[in-house]
């Protein structure tokens, strides 16, 4: 059965062989291990870790999350244990699993990205890196790399030089023209794109008249943003030729199929892990059922097949 599922769902992206297209999104599965009691990590296609920086980060003051209709706002502030501790303490156990491990990496300057990558290069059992150039929670004292094609290309190029592994660049929906950013990043050497990160949002407590998030604004995620994410995947698919990893409100196999048909080769489950920890497992089974029902030999035959 699992054998069978692998034949149907196994897919290669940027030289990485995923047993299936279902992975967990950065920041929604910790460092991967926190989910091991609830799901079979070996059944998962891959794990994108919580964002890692060269040095540990404390994160934002509470409140960090607010639920909204169909989603949630978060302003965690990229709290993380740092790349070094990840390599020393988490990676050894993580790599015992057959799933693909992809650290999500960020920095406030290109040098900080390089620093983090260099630390991670020392670790083994890492399939690739995902660059968070778009996390809207970070008060970087300026626009994020993701909002400016030139900056996005610059960080991509620098990281590619420093990395022996494939580099996946994660795009932001908070831009006028995501296709332009995608093309710039592809030209800079990105091996794949993750689409999308959260949309910038805000919530105010009408009784205290204060923002519900200590950080004032936060990132909107969950089913509410799915139509925006599907549109971004569709637009990006038509703009570049490198593979796309689809993200945004995916909670069911139907959701995942929508992204794959729109142009995603792999998908990430994010917010759904919080309210339905086994969502990723159900999605894997659902994708296999769809392949059988439509007698597809492999899910890759479905990627980007949207009919206009």
């Amino acid at each position, binding site marked *: 059965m699992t054998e069978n599922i692998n034949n149907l769902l196994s897919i290669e992206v940027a030289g990485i062989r995923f047993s299936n297209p279902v992975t967990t999104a950065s920041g929604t599965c910790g460092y991967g291990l926190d989910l091991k009691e609830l799901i079979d990590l070996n059944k998962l296609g891959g794990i994108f870790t919580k964002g890692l920086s060269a040095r540990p980060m404390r994160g934002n003051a509470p409140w960090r*999350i607010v639920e909204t209709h169909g989603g949630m706002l978060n302003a965690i502030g990229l709290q993380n244990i740092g790349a070094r501790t990840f390599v020393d303490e988490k990676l050894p156990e993580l790599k015992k699993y057959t799933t693909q491990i992809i650290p999500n990496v960020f920095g406030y300057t290109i040098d900080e990205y390089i620093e983090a990558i260099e630390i991670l290069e020392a670790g083994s059992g890492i399939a690739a890196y995902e660059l968070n150039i778009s996390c809207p929670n970070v008060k970087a004292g300026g626009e994020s790399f993701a909002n400016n094609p030139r900056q996005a290309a610059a960080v991509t190029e620098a990281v590619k030089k420093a990395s022996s592994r494939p580099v996946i660049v994660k795009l932001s929906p908070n831009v006028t023209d995501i296709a332009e950013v995608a093309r710039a990043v592809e030209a800079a050497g990105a091996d794949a794109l993750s689409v999308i990160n959260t949309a910038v949002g805000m919530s105010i407590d009408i009784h205290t008249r204060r923002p519900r998030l200590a950080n004032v604004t936060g990132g909107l995620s969950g089913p509410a943003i799915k139509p925006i994410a599907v549109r971004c995947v569709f637009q990006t698919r038509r703009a570049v030729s490198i593979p796309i990893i689809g993200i945004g409100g995916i909670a069911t196999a139907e959701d995942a199929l929508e992204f794959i048909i729109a142009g995603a080769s792999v998908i990430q489950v994010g917010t759904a892990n919080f309210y339905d920890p086994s969502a990723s497992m159900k999605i894997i089974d659902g994708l296999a059922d769809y392949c059988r029902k439509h007698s597809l030999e492999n899910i890759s035959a479905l990627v980007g097949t949207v009919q206009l």
Partner: protein
Amino acid sequence: MIDTIATVERNDLTHSASTRSYGRLRLRLQQNIPVLPGQFAMLKPRAVIEPLLRRAMAFYQCHRRDDGLSVEFIYQILGRGTQALARLERGDEVEFLGALGNTYDKAAAMGSEALLVAGGAGSPALFMLAEELLQMKIPVRLFIGGASRHDLCGLDDFTALLGAGNVITATVDGTHGEKGFVTAPLERHLQENVGKPLLIFSCGPDPMLHRVSLIAADYKVPAQLSLEAPMACGFGICVGCAVAVKADVAEGFIYKKVCTDGPVFRSEHLHW
């Protein structure tokens, strides 16, 4: 920790136009999982699409059966999540993730009088603790407060368990016990028992917990506080439930997770 579907055995509502409303929910689990005092579960009616997130609810009581487990919760009907819980009827299915979080350090109470300080919807988190402290032959006194007598959750059960003499009540509107905050009778008790070995266990709204921590510090009485925080997951993966805890770093504190490092913290460790 298990993620399963529980069945509603009963869901009794105390509705009232003027005051706050509460529900008492009993769920049946097939699995006989361990549940410790202070731990909680993440709950959501299976049929509900919106709100998305499960709600954290402290275990109030557990009834072991040969073929499973019955667990009870008391919830204040506030927003969309608890309104959805309030619509549950016998036989309905509930998404259940639990048992989650740490527990109280009961051993620390050996040889002391245990003072349980409960506020509003915080009292349920102290009931199983009271039961186990009594089993350990540790004297237990409950200080329970709320806006009105309707807000003294589980008062009858606590009184039956501890005896009326060991239950001190306070209500803001004076409809039950002393008028005002429950921290007043608590402080008097500490004054009258200076020198005697005492240990505080408390759960309730943040302002009350903060007040309790200050009083505990004044009288050099150790306190264990069960905290709340907005939670997306309840099991450590979202890092949304941060609480500042003293640490030997430049800023003097780091953020811990209420869901996995807590919900119970030692008062002196918290960075208010």
